[in-house]
């Protein structure tokens, strides 16, 4: 089937693709996708479970006996394109499947594994979850061994936190910013010209708080970064405005510090958990 296309054929194909509606393209994608074919029952599999959202089959190239694939019916290339609701369902199913593997196959652990993108080892552009029964010393995955130093941890935090807050939609702040903008959008540039320098003290943090809304709205172009930590190799889109980092930092250390230990959950799978003791 993998015949080489002539230039003319390729051109025609491209034209055809361009003229197709999104629905038609989705249909074509489905035809091309192994997992969509499996979902539609066009490829025979050993099906273990199915519901409206997903199905579970035995992996034909298993890492271990009982290696399962949890396949969403919908064709989503990667996880970020899946709604929280659907993803939650997938992981809830994975939880109970994992439970069954521990029980039925006497596995001493399970790995729930997902790959997003070819760089992560994803081979088919249809997001799936692997549920793999594990045993000590099976060498299916390496353990987390790489130690990174404290400075690096700080760098990661600085690089990612801003973006993370955007994704999480830290609402408190967003609301206040909008109000501010409505109140007086014209004078905001002046305020921004003088971002608080040096992120150490709290008064400045407060100021930063005030500034946060307008800056959040602007394209991230500011260069007032803590210079000492600039040796991170990550590309610059992640770099925070200092005041945002500050505000974010504040948020990070917010109220709920204490974990209350409720009465112990007695679970039938205690033995697995007990292995740790």
């Amino acid at each position, binding site marked *: 089937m993998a015949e080489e296309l002539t230039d003319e054929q390729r051109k025609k194909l491209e034209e055809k693709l361009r003229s197709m509606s999104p629905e038609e393209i989705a249909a074509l994608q489905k035809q091309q996708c192994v997992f969509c074919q499996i979902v539609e029952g066009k490829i025979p599999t*050993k099906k*273990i*479970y199915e519901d409206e959202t997903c199905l579970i089959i035995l992996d034909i*190239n298993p*890492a271990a*006996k009982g290696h399962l694939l949890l396949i969403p019916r919908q064709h989503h290339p990667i*996880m*970020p394109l899946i709604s*929280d609701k659907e993803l*939650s369902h997938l992981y809830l199913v994975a939880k*109970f*499947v*994992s439970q*069954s*593997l521990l029980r*039925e196959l006497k596995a*001493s*652990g*399970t790995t*729930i*594994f*997902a790959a*997003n*993108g*070819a*760089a*992560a*080892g994803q081979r088919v552009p249809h997001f799936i979850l692997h549920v*793999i029964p594990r045993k*000590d010393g*099976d*060498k299916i*995955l*390496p353990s*987390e*061994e790489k130690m*990174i130093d404290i400075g690096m*941890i700080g760098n*990661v935090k600085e*690089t*990612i*936190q*801003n*973006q*993370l807050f*955007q*994704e*999480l939609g830290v609402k408190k702040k967003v609301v206040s910013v909008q109000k501010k903008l409505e109140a007086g959008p014209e004078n905001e540039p002046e305020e921004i010209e003088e971002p608080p320098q040096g992120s150490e003290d709290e008064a400045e943090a407060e100021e930063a708080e005030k500034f946060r809304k307008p800056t959040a709205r602007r394209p991230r172009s500011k260069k007032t970064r803590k210079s000492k930590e600039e040796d991170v190799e990550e*590309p610059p889109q992640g770099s925070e405005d200092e005041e945002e980092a500050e505000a974010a930092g504040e948020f*990070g250390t917010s109220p709920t*510090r204490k*974990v209350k230990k409720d009465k112990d*959950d*007695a679970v*039938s*799978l205690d033995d*697995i*958990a007990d292995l*740790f*003791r």
Partner: protein
Amino acid sequence: MECEYCEIINGKGRAEVLYEDNDVAIAVKDKVFTPGQITIFPKKHYTILEMVPSRVLEKCVAFANKTSKAVFAGMGSQGTNIIIQNGLGAGQSVPHFGIEVVPRREGDAVNLQWESRQLAEDEVEMTFSRLKKEVPDIVKRGLKGEETVEAIEEDQEERSTKDSYLLKSLRRIP
């Protein structure tokens, strides 16, 4: 407290907390697959996945997905692995459930790809028939909220017998 994640929440331990609310914390720890790896874990100490209540798990998963998006955008990663190491046999190193978001790049020299194993056909058949028989039930019951947590079932039984006892004694009153 000895648990590494509990210590992180309490501000001890070698880690930076990126975010926390009442249920879930997102942190960068020092032991990772790749630099930039982020861990999402419930603040309450649940040892393994099976103990995490559905509501908390849903939240962890939603946060993991958002973290993954943030990693793509913020660190320019080309991919992410979302990994749950569940149980000692799976290499879980901290006795506290967590989801790892591992940023990946082409040629990052991290090998998270297992080798597939050849299994005997009858072995596969046996596993298949066994799982096919048991898994749907466990999943359906689980999704319905009747988690197979025996303690809870026992609890409820106790309560219901108590109830009926009370009811009976009530009925006995003329």
